[in-house]
């Protein structure tokens, strides 16, 4: 025994480690959702003859164990350290494209044609173009996404918005706000920006195809004038509140509103440094070393109240906040409007009869708070989750202004027009 002790040690410890990890996995509670990955974790697979014989039980079980492994997120962070030790980090001013695996990420849309009414037929062809290159570009410790939209996808979006205008009551005033990404402003054109399609052209394509009744906000030029400011997060795919402010200025020009100046609102950075969505996607060490800060403006809401509904069966509006300054949703882009609720209602301080409906995705979340002082009511509908037939909703709340706001990539995505057209038909 004494002679063999080191062999015994070398048997019991490694095998014991595996057994210990198995016990730990079995004992620990299982989460349903990974907030850092923004997805549902794999559920324990159903075991029956079908799932056993087709092998789906065993495949899913492996995913289940990996997804619910004890201290999984810490382990993943640890493996970043291992991978970073593989070699010498590149210089920060040298661009790097990080491909993102597509597993379970693709939006399933069929090649189809949707007929809205006899006048408008919108073709949806998902395979026709590359809207967003499948990865993240890192340059100078900042993350970028390359735009891949083209005239075809632009026309599709414009046709969709024109169909909406034709479909809804004539008295409504319409606005379009299209937002470019940081790629257009911050990447050196000669070396890297040329790899993406031009976003200014993309905006021009869409605006030139829109019905003349629709007011078009020149967000690009308003932001360009302030391009050296902190307009976009470095580690997140969203813009900052400051970036949203310049879009608000552009919107005010077409909406007959006198905008609040930056001098009228104080601002402060809240919470500590944070790492955003594109860091979570890439785990790039240069992003980690260059975290973001969150700037919040003190907008005069003057007693405005916000509410939300999660689904069409919800009869009462649930109170919520416009800006979660105390970080109830964590420090990050989530402070603006809290979440992407299916629909929000904000009762503003004005009694001017202006009731605005905004059809949006998350880019509008930092933008909407600036509008609150100017409207009697604002309805904020998320294009992904809005559960109502759009014309009924507009009629019910006596809405008289309509804003469609999208980041350019989302505008060119086949998913957005399809969802909006479904809303017109009352389908989800």
């Amino acid at each position, binding site marked *: 025994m004494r002679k063999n002790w080191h062999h015994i040690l070398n048997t019991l410890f490694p095998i014991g480690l595996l057994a210990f990890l198995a016990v730990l996995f079995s004992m620990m509670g299982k989460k349903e959702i990974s907030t850092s*990955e923004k*997805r*549902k974790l794999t559920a324990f697979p159903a075991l029956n003859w079908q799932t*056993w014989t087709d092998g789906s039980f065993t495949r899913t079980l492996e995913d289940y164990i*990996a997804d619910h492994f004890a201290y999984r997120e810490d382990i993943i962070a640890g493996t970043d350290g*291992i991978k970073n*030790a*593989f070699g010498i980090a*590149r210089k920060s001013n040298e661009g790097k494209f990080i491909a993102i695996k597509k597993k379970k990420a693709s939006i399933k849309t069929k090649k189809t044609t949707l007929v809205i009414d006899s006048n408008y037929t919108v073709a949806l062809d998902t395979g026709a173009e590359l809207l967003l290159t499948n990865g993240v570009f890192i340059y100078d410790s900042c993350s970028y996404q390359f735009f891949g939209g083209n005239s075809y996808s632009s026309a599709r979006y414009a046709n969709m918005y024109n169909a909406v205008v034709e479909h809804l009551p004539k008295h409504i005033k319409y606005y379009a706000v299209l937002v470019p990404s940081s790629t257009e402003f911050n990447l050196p054109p000669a070396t890297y920006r040329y790899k993406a399609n031009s976003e200014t052209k993309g905006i021009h394509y869409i605006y030139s195809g829109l019905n003349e009744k629709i007011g078009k906000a020149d967000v690009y030029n308003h932001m360009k004038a302030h391009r050296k400011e902190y307009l976009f997060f470095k580690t997140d795919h969203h813009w900052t509140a400051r970036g949203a402010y310049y879009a608000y200025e552009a919107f005010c020009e077409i909406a007959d509103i006198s905008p609040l100046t930056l001098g009228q609102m104080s601002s402060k950075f809240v919470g500590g440094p944070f790492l955003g969505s594109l860091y979570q996607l890439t785990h790039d060490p240069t992003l980690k070393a260059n975290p973001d800060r969150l700037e919040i403006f003190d907008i005069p809401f003057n007693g405005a109240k916000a509410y939300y509904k999660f689904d069409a069966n919800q009869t009462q509006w649930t109170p919520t906040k416009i800006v979660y300054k105390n970080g109830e949703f964590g420090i990050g882009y989530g402070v603006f409007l809290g979440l992407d609720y299916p629909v929000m209602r904000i009762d503003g301080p004005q009694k001017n009869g202006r009731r605005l409906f905004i059809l949006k995705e998350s880019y509008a979340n930092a933008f909407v708070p600036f509008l609150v002082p100017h409207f009697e009511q604002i309805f904020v509908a998320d294009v992904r989750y809005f559960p109502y037939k759009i014309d009924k909703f507009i009629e019910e709340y006596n809405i008289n202004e309509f804003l469609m706001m999208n980041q350019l990539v989302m505008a060119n995505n086949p998913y957005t027009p399809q969802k909006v057209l479904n809303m017109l038909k009352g389908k989800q």
Partner: protein
Amino acid sequence: MVFASLVFLLFFFPLSLLFNWLHGNINYKNIVLVLFSLIFYAWGEPVWVFLLLFTTLVDFTMARLIEKNENHWRAKMYLGISVFFSLGILVVFKYSGFLCGIFTDITGYSVKAPNLALPIGISFYTFQSLSYILDVYRGQVSAQKKYLNYLLFISLFHQLVAGPIVRYSDIAQEIEKRSATWADISYGVNRFAWGLFKKVFFANTAGTLVAKYLEGDLGALSISEAIMGIFLFAIQLYYDFSGYSDMAIGMGRMLGFHYLENFNFPYIAKSIKEFWTRWHISLGSFLRDYLFTPIAFNKRHWGKWGVMYALLITFALSGLWHGASWNFIFWGLYFAVLIILEEWFLNRIFKFMGSWLSHVYLILAVFFSYPLFYFTDFQKLKQYFFILFSGSHPWQKTGFTSDLLEHIYWMIAAIIFLTPLGKKMGVYLIQKLSNKPAIIGLANTIASITFLLIAIALLVAKSFNPFLYFRF
């Protein structure tokens, strides 16, 4: 099931050891091992476990009949039935699509192959059963009397899916009687942990990089990227295959089985002939004993032409064993031609010029074999060589050097362990510390645990799958 999976590492493997060690009776141990092996096989391929049971039953019966009819014409008949049956099943499942394609190409009549999934490990266990039946026929081993023991030999999960191809004679005695000392188990643990680390840390990482270079648009590759892609594929293939063999050898040793080595640093060989005595040794020796030698003997009246003929046949079939596609056949023939050239004149040049030239030759020869192995599509293969030799592609593109530097330490480690340098350093340290077994023991334990933890962490990290927007 595969070894480099969390189900295997956390549950299957520790439980299989636990149940094995619960009782010392050999029959109990064999029953436990067979049960675990069948579960292992049925894990991913539940239907094909019946095929495995059926083929083993046929071969077991034929071997008994061969032995009973020794030196009688019936023995040859039973051998023929068994060989025809084993190879027939292999052909139906693995080669029917390929053969139907050839038939269609030649005759113009479209013949559809049956749409059958390939049962895992079929190439390995078919060769194991062939070696058994041929050895019984030649009188080199006695036929196994118990079906359970024969089933254990074929289905043993250590080597069922990725080798090594274990011969019955190698483990016949250990099936009947075996024991594992603490030293054996400890060695097995180290070997298993190292094999797992090779697979997950080196092979999987190399695989990701290979895909980056060779799976995208080949037309956009620079020459250096094309070279790097195949260089990394050479790393991936070695670590993947030898990692699995290490794990099999380690697991066998923990239970008292002594499987023969399957890899012996093949990239340090000085000729292709030597390479094939170092690379997948169990396959090479199988082909030598059951294919090359009988053919060469049969054609001995042809002189050196008979040897060449045997070489070409053996290597063509070796290629075909690796995959049912023409590229694999050409891959095999490529090696046969090089061995013939070596015997003809190359060896004399190397002898004259020194061993450095033979090393360079081997590396280049093996490097140029891998595009044949990697690209099953001949258009892509052509495109790949066009990139290398047409002169129309740039030598290097922006960012390549940075890509290389980002993996430089990993690559240096991978290259070191392709050679015996790491092993020699380990042996040197053990000799130096031979009077301090405590330190050696502790270092072994730390190394095993480190390898296991890193491999498991990387397997868990593979599940990281973030989205920009919530996707519930």
